[in-house]
């Protein structure tokens, strides 16, 4: 089956991202496809490029990126929720006359319409909240 996940918890503040990553690997092991992860609310902080967790903690951002590279999972970040929280890509940074950007590679800013569409087009949507 085709799965989408909605992640709404900030990394390292709540267990939501850890749970979502564990669920992701289990569904892949059972032969399903994880096509989309949508980050909303404080979940957008999962896409922070400059996160530097200590070495004895799981690196959540890299774990998301591995899913993208190995499974082709789309990592979609709600642009409205992200920009006001300081998660910004190069294009939006230029548009706002800012220097630098904070969105990690493999993640993309997108509208919340993509969440509605994911709910309609995937077989399953599972939400992980803080």
């Amino acid at each position, binding site marked *: 089956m085709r799965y989408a996940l909605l992640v709404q918890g900030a990394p390292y503040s709540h267990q939501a991202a850890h749970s979502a990553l564990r669920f992701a690997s289990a569904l892949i092991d059972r032969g399903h496809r994880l096509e989309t992860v949508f980050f909303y609310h404080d979940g957008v902080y999962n896409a922070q490029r400059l996160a530097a967790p200590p070495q004895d903690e799981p690196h959540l951002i890299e774990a998301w990126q591995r899913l993208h590279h190995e499974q082709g999972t789309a990592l979609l970040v709600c642009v*409205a*929720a992200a920009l006001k929280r300081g998660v910004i890509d190069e294009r939006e940074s230029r548009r706002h006359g800012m220097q630098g950007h904070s969105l990690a590679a493999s993640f993309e800013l997108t509208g*919340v319409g993509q969440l*509605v569409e994911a709910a309609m087009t995937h077989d399953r949507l599972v939400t992980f909240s803080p």
Partner: protein
Amino acid sequence: MNNADSSTAMLVVLRHAPHGSSWLREGLDVALVGAAFGQSVSLLFLGDGVQALIKGQQKGALGQKGTHPTLDMLAMYDIDTLLVDADSLAQRGLAEDDLQLPVTLIASSQLLRVFSRHAPVFNF
């Protein structure tokens, strides 16, 4: 229940009060975008979410926007199924007269039908 045939309608459940967190605002955003995408959208106000409907809300003292102006825009988006859990309302000492919009009250025993008859369900 006025929505017996709404199995393809999207349900957005609002369970958080205004101002204290962004859950209500971000939940409403999903509802508006869903409607703009042509989906039939029902709102369910549950728990502290019923506080979103109380009359007389204002901006926050620092100028932070409230969610009450968004509620007045729901009709423009053709979101007119506003379901309110009657128990949540009564527990908070509120009655329909205290609300800024006309709503449909849902008895506790009917709550599960609201969940089973909608797809998808977004719970905020």
